[in-house]
């Protein structure tokens, strides 16, 4: 096709003009001048503020909620509970296990029960202290063993196991019988907070039959879907504008929909704008965390250094809600053998509810814990064999034609071996193997390998989208649903745009994602923002060139 030809022309260039060049981000100046606006910066003086009232016990049935004394606090405008939710009181991501406002049961300290609206923070605080909830407390399941014990109390209907995963490849019994050395160990990885410097925030402005939310998330279109679902509205009644965002790291992928839904719910009920900005204590205490995990790992290896079998048992702690645990656990399960070809694999995963804060998206999406276990195993095996850790890994790494843990044949390029050898040579590895003591510290070189399936995966179609407006003066308006959270993906896109259509970078303006005027580019997570976003830019642009043949030449010649 014609646009394929344009593409191959551009990509065939020996030297790019913009892509790969060290150019200055177009958003950097405003940020350095203090002029860049983040969600809370849009909130006008006097806007009604919202605070979530949360449970003070980890596991209990709610007998009654009394807000009457809180409503008498001067400055309090209203308080909403689950009884006020007329749309859908359910905001679970993967499973319908997470009420928007809990009115029957609470599942962790911090479970949302009520939304307090008031004129200032002081009234919010005072009112929150005067809400009284009568609980019938249940035994709290505070770790995975408690949740799995025989006398465990169910946190959700259907028990404390949210889901299980399972892979059987080859014959592990045979694999272990061929092994000369075995290593078996249990690895723990804990909760972790994202700690973005900008806390979660949303500012909702209602109008007749519509609500606009300015917020900080990672997927404006997921936020729109969740807000519309909670309100019981259609998608075209909800407009999400993503402001510049002060870090996200996965956390705002889950929190964006929640805080936006709280603000939008209160704003539409109240009929006036509502701002909902978390403070640091709320953010650290109640935002979702990296899912903790316990990984039991058994590996067998021959004297020659070939891993013959792995047996991996992953117990993931969801916390109070499953949230993204199914996808997180599947990712750990699918990567269980690490970046190595192992013919015999047995992998079992379980995601377990506990009465603690729940987990969610976080950079690496499960693979950090998994590789921590897998690489510790490889290190132990190398030590047991008396073999150099890099040499040992090279005998097992995935190559073209290898089959992964889930038996996928890697028929494209696989760069692991090349990468490892380059690191070995560039670091002068062999001469740094002896530990060097410096006082109480010891320095030495170690090696770790990891691989990660990027983007959304899980067998759903993955695509992206963007639009370019070519204006009469040669300037370009660029819109994408991929959001700016510090990583600069939208700017990466416009570098590709500039390279292909020949418009200088300073003539391209990136607009904020706005679900009323931006095409859905799906979420900004899993390293897909530039990877998929960038590809669609290329294809979209070449198509635009074909359809508006003359524009490109004109723009290049007269870029005023």
């Amino acid at each position, binding site marked *: 096709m014609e646009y394929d030809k344009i593409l191959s022309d551009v990509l065939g260039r020996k030297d790019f003009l913009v892509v790969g060049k060290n150019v200055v981000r177009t958003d950097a100046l405003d940020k350095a*001048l203090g002029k860049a606006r983040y969600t*809370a910066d849009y909130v006008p003086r006097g806007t009604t503020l919202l605070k979530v009232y949360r449970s003070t016990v980890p596991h209990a049935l709610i007998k009654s909620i009394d807000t009457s004394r809180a409503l008498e606090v001067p400055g309090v405008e209203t308080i909403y509970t689950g009884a006020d939710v007329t749309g859908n009181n359910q905001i679970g991501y993967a499973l319908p296990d997470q009420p928007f406002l809990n009115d029957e049961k609470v599942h962790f300290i911090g479970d949302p029960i009520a939304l307090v609206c008031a004129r200032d923070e002081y009234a919010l605080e005072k009112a929150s202290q005067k809400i009284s909830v009568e609980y019938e407390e249940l035994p709290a399941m505070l770790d995975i063993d408690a949740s799995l014990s025989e006398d465990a109390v169910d946190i959700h209907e259907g028990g404390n196991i949210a889901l299980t995963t399972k892979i059987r490849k080859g014959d592990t019994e045979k694999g272990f019988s061929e092994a000369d050395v075995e290593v078996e160990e249990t690895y723990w990885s804990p909760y972790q907070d994202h700690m*973005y*410097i900008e806390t979660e925030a949303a500012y909702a402005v209602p109008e007749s039959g519509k609500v606009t939310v300015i917020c900080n998330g990672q997927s404006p279109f997921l936020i729109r879907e969740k807000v519309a679902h909670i309100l019981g509205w259609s998608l075209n009644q909800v407009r999400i504008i993503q402001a510049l965002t*002060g*870090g996200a*790291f996965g956390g705002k992928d889950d929190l964006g929909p929640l805080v936006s839904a709280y603000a939008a719910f209160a704003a539409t009920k109240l009929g006036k704008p509502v701002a909902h900005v978390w403070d*640091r204590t709320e953010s650290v205490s109640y935002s979702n965390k990296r899912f903790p995990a316990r990984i039991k790992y058994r590996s067998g290896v021959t004297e020659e250094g070939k891993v013959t079998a792995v047996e991996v048992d992953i117990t993931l702690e969801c916390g109070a809600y499953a949230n993204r645990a199914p996808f997180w656990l599947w990712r750990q399960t699918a990567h269980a053998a690490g970046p190595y070809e192992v013919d015999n694999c047995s992998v079992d995963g379980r995601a377990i509810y506990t009465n603690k804060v729940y987990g969610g998206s976080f950079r690496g999406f499960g693979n950090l814990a998994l590789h921590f276990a897998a690489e510790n195993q490889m290190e132990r095996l190398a030590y047991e064999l008396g073999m150099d850790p890099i040499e040992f890994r090279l005998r097992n790494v995935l190559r073209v034609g290898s089959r992964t843990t889930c038996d996928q044949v890697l028929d494209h390029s696989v760069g692991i071996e090349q990468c490892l050898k380059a690191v070995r040579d560039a670091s002068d590895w062999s001469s740094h193997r002896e530990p060097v003591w410096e006082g109480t510290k010891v320095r030495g070189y170690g090696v770790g390998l990891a691989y990660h399936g990027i983007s959304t995966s899980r067998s759903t179609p993955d695509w992206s989208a963007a639009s370019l407006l070519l204006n009469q003066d040669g300037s370009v308006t660029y819109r994408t649903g991929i959001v700016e959270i510090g990583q600069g993906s939208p700017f990466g896109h416009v570098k590709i745009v500039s390279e292909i259509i020949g418009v200088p970078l300073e003539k391209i303006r990136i607009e904020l994602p706005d679900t009323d005027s931006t095409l859905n580019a799906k979420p900004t997570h899993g390293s897909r923002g530039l990877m998929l976003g960038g590809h669609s830019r290329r294809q979209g642009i070449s198509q635009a060139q074909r359809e508006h043949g003359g524009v490109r030449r004109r723009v290049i010649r007269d870029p005023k």
Partner: protein
Amino acid sequence: MEVSFKLNGEPVTVTVEPYVSLVDMLRDEMGVKSVKKGCEQGECGACTLLIDGVPVTSCLVLAPQVESRHVTTIEGLEKNPLMIDLREAFIENGAVQCGFCTPGMLISAYALLRDNPHPSEEEVKRGIEGNICRCTGFTKIIEAILDAVERIAPE
């Protein structure tokens, strides 16, 4: 109560409750949004500004405490030659990512170079130890500040 002080050189008087913090007075009462709120407990440094030239976290200062003092935010240093060098060094060294820590970080870097025009790398790290950045890993920020030292024209 009324608080009178100079904001970026201009005399101002604000009516504010005595328990309001300086950062809240600036953001909510005066619309100065460049001063960011990250933790409200003096840890993250996003709200750093200068009081009588000294960098402080404005979340730990009560509004009445700036009575008769000089408060300087990033806006007040926009045309300052040292800040211009720092700003350009930050931008060109990739030290600006999400940008949320940037105004506070620049204020701390400014105070550092104003008092110590030729800091060592260790002194640069000390100079910005009160400001947390979660995007860059600090390397590019440190490089930018050291680069700014090179840019400052000899007097």
